[in-house]
């Protein structure tokens, strides 16, 4: 009888282990997962001039609960080419920038992983440092460089390479430069972590058997670093799709990015329901990249 009671008690009172899991989990569920439910809910609401500026979905009419889902926001987004173009061009910006980051970041990560241990720590620290420096400030730095009368143009004019200043600031080129600059450390760090784990004996064996270095790189190093490549690409691509600061500061009127559209809907038009619908569609677009990111994250965990 007593043993049975103890057993039931044990089942009811969570063990220490469960409590430990529950503490951070509860925080993240409350402040990260549940908020998405509110975004979804408000994306079905209508704009109204009130505080908060949206209508309630549920209404009690004659003691029965009425739920009114308004699909208008989504129809509005799908009918206006501005929004569709903004989604397409954000994905394009993010994709091209991710590929550029990979092209620049891979050789850098590779070189760092191959350098001698003492220098390696310093080189790594120099990669980490920009990622700890305020993003806004690092993007701001490019305004002074890319302006018409900025440092780059002055330098090129002085060299005599160009006769007239190049227009770079407030164009799409400036946005690409900004994204690659801003996110490069996030590409290099996972690649470096992956590349340092490789077993050098594989390369030695290949070398001893007469395999040329470029071939052993293509057949051994590159395939082994696949997980690092995917992790780095997702760390750049996903946040870049929703980037706001870079198109705002470096982009021009031709630059169309969905993060900026969302910001304007929210802060300038104060249309919370449309901003929510914009966010939900962005999440749907990012679902696959997010799943890939978590898949590789989980692989590393186990």
């Amino acid at each position, binding site marked *: 009888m007593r043993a049975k009671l103890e057993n039931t008690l044990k089942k009811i009172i969570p063990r220490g282990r469960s409590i430990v899991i529950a503490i951070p989990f509860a925080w993240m569920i409350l402040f990260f997962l549940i908020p998405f439910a509110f975004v979804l809910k408000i994306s079905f609401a209508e704009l109204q001039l009130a505080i908060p500026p949206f209508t309630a979905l549920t209404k009690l009419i004659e003691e029965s609960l009425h739920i009114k889902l308004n699909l208008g926001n989504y129809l509005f987004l799908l009918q206006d080419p501005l929004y569709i173009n903004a989604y397409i061009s954000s994905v394009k910006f993010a994709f091209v920038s991710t590929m550029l980051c990979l092209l620049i970041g891979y050789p850098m990560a590779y*070189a760092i992983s191959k*350098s001698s241990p003492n220098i390696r720590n310093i080189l790594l620290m120099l990669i980490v440092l920009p990622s700890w420096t305020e993003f806004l400030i690092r993007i701001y730095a490019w305004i002074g460089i890319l302006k018409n009368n900025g440092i780059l143009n002055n330098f090129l004019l002085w060299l005599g390479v160009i006769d007239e200043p190049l227009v770079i600031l407030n164009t799409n080129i400036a946005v690409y430069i900004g994204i690659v600059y801003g996110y490069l450390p996030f590409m290099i760090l996972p690649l470096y*972590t992956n590349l340092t784990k490789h077993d050098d004996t594989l390369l030695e064996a290949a070398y001893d058997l007469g395999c040329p270095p470029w071939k052993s790189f293509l057949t051994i190093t590159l395939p082994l670093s696949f997980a690092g490549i995917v992790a780095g690409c997702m760390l750049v691509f996903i946040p870049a799709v*929703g980037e706001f600061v870079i198109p705002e500061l470096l982009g021009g009127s031709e630059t169309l990015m969905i993060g900026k559209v969302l910001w304007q809907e929210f802060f300038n038009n104060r249309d919370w329901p449309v901003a929510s619908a914009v966010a939900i569609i962005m999440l749907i677009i990012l679902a696959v990249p997010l799943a890939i990111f978590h898949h590789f994250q989980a692989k590393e965990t186990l």
Partner: protein
Amino acid sequence: MRRKLSHRLILFLSIGYAFLYLPIIILIVYSFNESRLVTVWAGFSTKWYGELLKDQGILDAVWMSLRIAFLTAWVATFLGAIAGQVMARFGRFRFHSGFASTITAPLVMPEVITGLSLLLLFVSMETMIGWPEGRGMLTIWISHVTFATAFVAVIVSSRLREMDISIEEAAMDLGAHPFKVFFVITIPIIMPALISGWLLSFTLSMDSLVITSFVAGPASTTLPMKVFSSVRMGVSPKINAVATFIVLFATVIVVTSSVMTIRQDKKKQREIQAAMKENLGK
């Protein structure tokens, strides 16, 4: 067989670092420019730093940011340490993959989405239960803790995965309570990760612009918000002066935390070698 780096790789690395650092260096150099124009050099001057110290708006924003960052760092380190421990050491439990995904998702989630969703949560909670009342430091702090926890969890769990689990297992086998093992063995092992996690949370909180803009009330302006509103007006040497402080701050923090981690690793290696020698001697 560690062959030396080829010249091509060294050249590439140099260009890469130049790309990363030239803009920051130019930014700092022009903060000492006499002229109001950021791009024309008119002689050395520290007058923009003087102007900065007279700007009450910026000083208030710095104070606000520092307070929030300090409060964020402690709670994010606490939550992140637990979450990292769970991710690295708890093996499989029922919601294991859900747990890891939920904890790490804020790392990549576009900030406009996180910011909007948190704001809508706060607004809805206020209508439903009357808390949190309005928006300000409290809501900013909650938002910062949420994304900073993700970073700390990743730092702690990757540190734990590098570490040998056998010491913890040995202590458990000898009958130590899991909590005792955590405090006596795990915490000292992950101390460098906890310190870098604390510092990173602090920095992330100081730097957050987009999420903070969504959840901040009219009375609470943080430093990045202040900088952003002046940057929108155009470049100004005063912002360069602020930027110089921010870069200096980040440098001190990153160097401190790197040196600490490297030192502890070296110490650990020496201890392992000493222990091995002792064993061989017997």
